[in-house]
């Protein structure tokens, strides 16, 4: 049994309209039936483009979002159905690290106060002296000087703030850390420091990670298993090396062919699979295979009508495509161009995809949501965490 198992998880956000936003006119299908397992001590990497539902899924595991349907089984307990008082003890064991460390750290609290807050709420350490000892130890582990305790978030660089975010999770001695874009706000040289730190901590503390990121190279570097998301669903899942060696889903193939590698030799040999059009809106996802509006291999049968399930194609490599075998064997041909023609031509298919993406404009606060994915949820979290932490004392 895996430490963390998601089974058919759905998170649908109602889209409200009307004078008092009292009419539900539809749903954003942010996460729409995701099943995956994370093994203890391993790293599961979740990749996909902006708006595909990665953050929503991560937050759902912590029950920071309501789960519309499905199960989140952590260490044998289904968190989705747990009453909120009982959720509290699990909160400590599942921690989250955010993209924007500054947005998730209270600027008026010094580091000691930020770190001891959660400890006190979860009864870690019998007094502040003991907690301070623990904090010192963790600060050293994440590579911060012990005088950091009396300083404030703005006195630190971006990389150091991310270390503080990691320390805040670690002081609670969690089993699982969900890292949402842990390095995407950082400069490359600093990114590498934080990635190495996460790896060292995993090794020494036996942590389990669910790492969410849009950067496939980062995810490939740190993950044992990678899940590729597209419009709320997993389209492919495989061990990291296997996914790189042989991506099987058309979307994964395109995604991988688009990731630039800092090596001219590789870049000159690269054949890009360019996709038509833009990502459709999750408020109005295409029927059938969600990728069919942009898929270079889209077929006349099935693709537009039946949603392909995620199936094991051998050696733990799972793919959600009706034509995996045929594409592999070359017996179905590409039906859409993937060169520069894909960009310049204005095919009906692309136009259709774009049409759908327009739905975005009608979702009242969807644009703001996608533009500030880090700060908005992060601040909300801080509030939620505070409330959760206050309630037991009251």
């Amino acid at each position, binding site marked *: 049994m895996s430490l963390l198992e998601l089974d058919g998880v759905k998170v649908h956000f109602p889209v409200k309209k009307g004078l008092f936003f009292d009419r539900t006119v539809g749903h954003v299908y942010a996460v729409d039936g995701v099943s995956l397992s994370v093994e203890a001590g391993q790293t599961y990497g979740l990749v996909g*483009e*902006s708006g595909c539902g990665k953050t929503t899924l991560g937050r759902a595991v912590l029950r920071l979002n309501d789960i519309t349907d499905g199960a989140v089984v952590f260490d044998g307990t289904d968190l989705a159905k747990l009453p909120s008082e009982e959720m509290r003890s699990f909160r400590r064991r599942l921690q989250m690290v955010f993209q924007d460390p500054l947005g998730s750290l209270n600027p008026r609290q010094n580091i000691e106060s930020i770190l001891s807050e959660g400890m006190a709420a979860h009864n870690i350490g019998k007094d502040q002296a003991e907690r301070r000892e623990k904090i010192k130890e963790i600060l050293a582990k994440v590579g911060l000087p012990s005088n950091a305790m009396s300083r404030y978030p703005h006195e630190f*660089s971006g*990389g*150091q703030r991310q270390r503080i975010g990691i320390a805040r999770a670690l002081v609670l001695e969690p089993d699982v850390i969900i890292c949402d874009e842990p390095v995407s706000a950082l*400069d*490359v*040289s*600093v*990114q*590498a*420091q934080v*990635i*190495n730190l996460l*790896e060292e901590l995993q090794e020494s503390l036996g942590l389990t990670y669910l790492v969410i990121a*849009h950067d*496939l*190279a*980062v995810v*490939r*570097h*740190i*993950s044992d298993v990678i899940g590729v998301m597209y419009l709320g669903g997993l389209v492919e899942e495989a061990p*990291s*090396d296997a996914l*790189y060696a042989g991506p099987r889903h058309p979307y994964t193939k*395109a*995604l*991988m062919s*688009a*990731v*630039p*590698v*800092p*090596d*001219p*030799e*590789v*870049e*000159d040999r*690269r054949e*890009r699979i*360019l*996709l038509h*059009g*833009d*990502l459709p809106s999750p408020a109005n996802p295409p029927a059938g295979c969600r990728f069919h509006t942009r898929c270079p291999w889209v077929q006349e049968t099935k693709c537009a009508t039946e949603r392909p399930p995620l199936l094991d194609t051998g050696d733990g490599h799972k793919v959600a495509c009706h034509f995996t075998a045929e594409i592999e064997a070359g017996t179905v041909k590409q039906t859409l161009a993937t060169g*520069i023609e*894909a*960009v*310049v*031509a*204005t095919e009906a298919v*692309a*136009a259709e995809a*774009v049409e759908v*993406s*327009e739905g975005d*404009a009608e979702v009242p606060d969807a*644009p703001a949501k996608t533009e500030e994915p880090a700060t908005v949820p992060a601040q909300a979290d801080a509030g939620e965490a505070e409330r959760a932490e206050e309630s037991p004392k009251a």
Partner: protein
Amino acid sequence: MALLSVEELSVTFTARGRKDATAVDGVSFDVDQGQVVGLVGESGCGKSVTSLALMGLLPRKGVRIGGRAEFDGQNLLGISERKLRDMRGSQLAMIFQDPLSSLNPVVPIGIQVTEILQRHRGLKGEKARKEAASLLDRVGIPDPDRRLKEYPHQLSGGMRQRALIAMAVACAPRLLIADEPTTALDVTIQAQILELLKELVDQEGTALLMITHDLGVVAGLCDEVNVLYAGRAVESAGRRELFAHPTHPYAHGLLGSIPRLDAPRGEPLNPIRGSINDKIAWADGCAFAPRCDHYTMECLTGTPELTEPRAAGHQVRCVNPVLPKAEVPA
């Protein structure tokens, strides 16, 4: 003679009541017709300020600009505001990271494009509209006639950036400056935009100054690369030479820090220690010294000179460069 020749460009912000801050500290490079030249470096190294200085878009007050930027025989840093305004749009154009901030939110795309065509190419009415539609079509915006009537917020991020490129190339500029044009976009959309820029350079012979922090983008697109650190170019070379033999400890370190999609899992990264905040003034020595593994006392005796320790045209600003023997692992 290069189309654009920048020599010892420096920009210092001199806000009253604050210490002078030098953002660009002697940057030199050339851009030829049909060539892509990259400026690459981490946040705050002076990439955007360089491009704004070239376009004459920095505020007039509180900024001191030094050096020269010869474009087609004229010093861009010396000509009148009016002349520069004429050149912007027709000869020089720029695209930014955030297309939304450079489009007018309350004016339909079509009017924004036809305005440019009218101002710089004298096209009017139906003619301008037709040309605008064909420009949108050219950059891969489906159903251009309808899109022309829409407002910027109705387009996706990728489409906005394409609309901005359409506007930038409307007058076939000779030099296009692109400041992180794909940083805000998803990687599959980035691939589309990069392909489009490549096509523009190949077909129209446009010179492209590409500003990015992404060495992967540089590897695929740029002919010449300038690596900036704290406002100065620390290494400049042709693309293949730079990636095969990064010689400045910073450039070398950067390449060691990047997780590569094609690297086997388990290979550790070699980060550079510290952050960009740990620097000393170039006047006192090498700004990278506090983070550098090659650092010696010599590094603290004034700005290191540019040298060519490896090959002609491969310039490095370092007294102890990373030379082949150090590159070969034991």
